[in-house]
């Protein structure tokens, strides 16, 4: 009799007497399984290809910059920088595409396939679930933004004409600016991406919503900016630029001159308020969507 006909064989049962973790272990396990899913681990090559390709693209500028610096290290010309540490934070649209691809993939199937009923039959609450997903995606975004910056830093340090120590001394501030700016960027993208994904059970809808919110807000801000007589304050509706304003505050202490918001007195405060509002609303939405398990 084949198994497909529904045969159940009795091969005995062994009780489990080993260690058991509590809620923290369950959260850690959920973070781990989310990371595996996001990176396509234990999944088909098609599900591995896109996330790894997008993340690989993010690293290209760092590698090219270090390569050029190495090749021109003995040249009397000034060293060529194709990317700065500040410019590298939020530089690549690959990260946006990564969020639009992965955030829906780690949330929507759980709801669509009703897997949540099995997850919440474990010692996990709805907020545990939401925060584990946020931690996993935020952690991935941080790692894949931070590691290329470190490659850039260490590479530049090693090929620096004045010696590694000189480079380290001259760029010491980067060692705190980069992780802080990258963490704020990761928190922004992860919370927004997951919040929008939590509103639907369809991945394609969630992905389109994420890109739509970012790109439409950017386009509307650009149109308003072009219109005569509009205040630079309209720039705060540009959701795509919000983490870049915050990045500039971390690196420069003010918003960069390439943004119109820099022209406005108090623009920095408006940017911080808008950033906090987007992250706050996103987190509240995410927690609200999974509140039912604790109702």
């Amino acid at each position: 009799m084949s198994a497909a006909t529904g045969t159940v064989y009795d091969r005995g049962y062994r009780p489990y007497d080993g260690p058991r973790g509590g809620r923290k272990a369950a959260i850690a396990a959920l973070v781990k399984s989310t990371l595996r899913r996001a990176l396509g681990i234990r999944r088909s090559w098609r599900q591995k290809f896109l996330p790894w390709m997008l993340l690989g693209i993010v690293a290209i500028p760092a590698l090219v910059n270090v390569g050029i610096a190495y090749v021109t290290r003995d040249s009397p010309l000034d060293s060529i920088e194709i990317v700065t540490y500040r410019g590298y934070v939020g530089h690549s649209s690959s990260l946006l595409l990564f969020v639009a691809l992965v955030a829906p993939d780690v949330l929507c199937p759980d709801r669509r396939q009703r897997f949540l009923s099995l997850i919440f039959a474990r010692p996990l609450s709805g907020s545990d679930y939401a925060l584990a997903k946020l931690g996993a995606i935020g952690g991935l975004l941080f790692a894949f933004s931070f590691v290329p910056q470190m490659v850039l830093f260490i590479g530049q340090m090693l090929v620096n004409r004045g010696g590694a120590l000189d480079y380290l001394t001259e760029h010491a501030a980067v060692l705190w600016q980069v992780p802080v700016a990258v963490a704020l960027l990761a928190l922004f993208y992860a919370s927004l991406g997951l919040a929008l994904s939590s509103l639907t059970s369809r991945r394609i809808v969630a992905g389109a919503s994420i890109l739509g919110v970012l790109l439409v807000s950017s386009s509307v801000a650009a149109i308003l900016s072009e219109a005569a007589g509009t205040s630079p304050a309209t720039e705060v509706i540009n959701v795509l630029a919000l983490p870049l304003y915050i990045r500039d505050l971390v690196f420069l202490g003010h918003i960069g001159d390439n943004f119109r918001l820099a022209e406005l007195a108090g623009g920095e405060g408006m940017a911080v308020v808008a950033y906090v509002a987007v992250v706050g609303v996103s987190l509240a939405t995410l927690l609200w969507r999974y509140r039912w398990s604790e109702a």
Partner: protein
Amino acid sequence: MRRVAGPLLRAVGLTKRFGGVTALDGLTMDVPHGRIGLVGANGAGKTTFFRLLLGLTRPTQGSVEVAGVEVSSDPARARSRLGYMPEHDCLPTDQSATDVVATLGELAGLPASAARQRASEVLDLVGLDESRFRPIEGYSTGMRQRTKLAQALVADPDLLLLDEPTAGLDPLGRESMLDLVSRLGGFGISVLLATHLLDDVQQVCDHVVMLDGGRLVVSGTTDELLERTGVVVVEVDHRVDALVAGLARRALAATVTPDGAVEVAASGDGDLDVIRDVVAELNLPLHRLSTRVGTLDEVFVRRAGVAEVT
């Protein structure tokens, strides 16, 4: 058996209302360890009771305990003692049974290596062979049901909540599933089997809880509920009409069933002696003389006062 003292489940005035709808109405009962059937028609409150046990919803009034743990005050601890197999599809179809069961084992708090080991063992137990390594999207209904049972078992729970575990299974699969469920008690795991198939409960469970419209109809052992009906079934080879006539002469009412047996309204050992004597006087070969035991369907219809269980 890893049992805590006291009842497995204790509900005290357990009530759950959703707006104007009362899903459970003042449920008070103690349920012992073992294999327990939770039966009732659709809408009787079975799923709501499961959700209350899992701490996924809070009671409007009253309380419920699982193995001494008050669910509302510590739902995570209560859940750590439970394994849950829902009725509906709930498996991620792009993953293998091995990965799903191991992941859910880790989410229940098992270390990663132990979770994978346990996943392998319970998938063996439920009879999922090499197909466990294939994506679930290619599984039959029976294989999916067995995967759902395996994930409920992976963390070695004290109590399994099984919601219609035989739904969608063919007769062989159903028998196998019920056989496995009936043996879980021997592994030290209690089972709460929610179903509207009273035959499943009668076959497997040693305690029955009947719900109707959110109210407790009856809670008792299966043997108690399958009370004697006062009807004796007699099977002989031939001359059935002569037997009926002979019994009538001795003041015992008898009828012939469609399958040729004779049912006699009897009360007490004296009537049984009379039946034996009539059979002997007529020199009939006696094949069966037994008291007819009722079915849970009859008990439910009688106690709940409903015409049929859907």
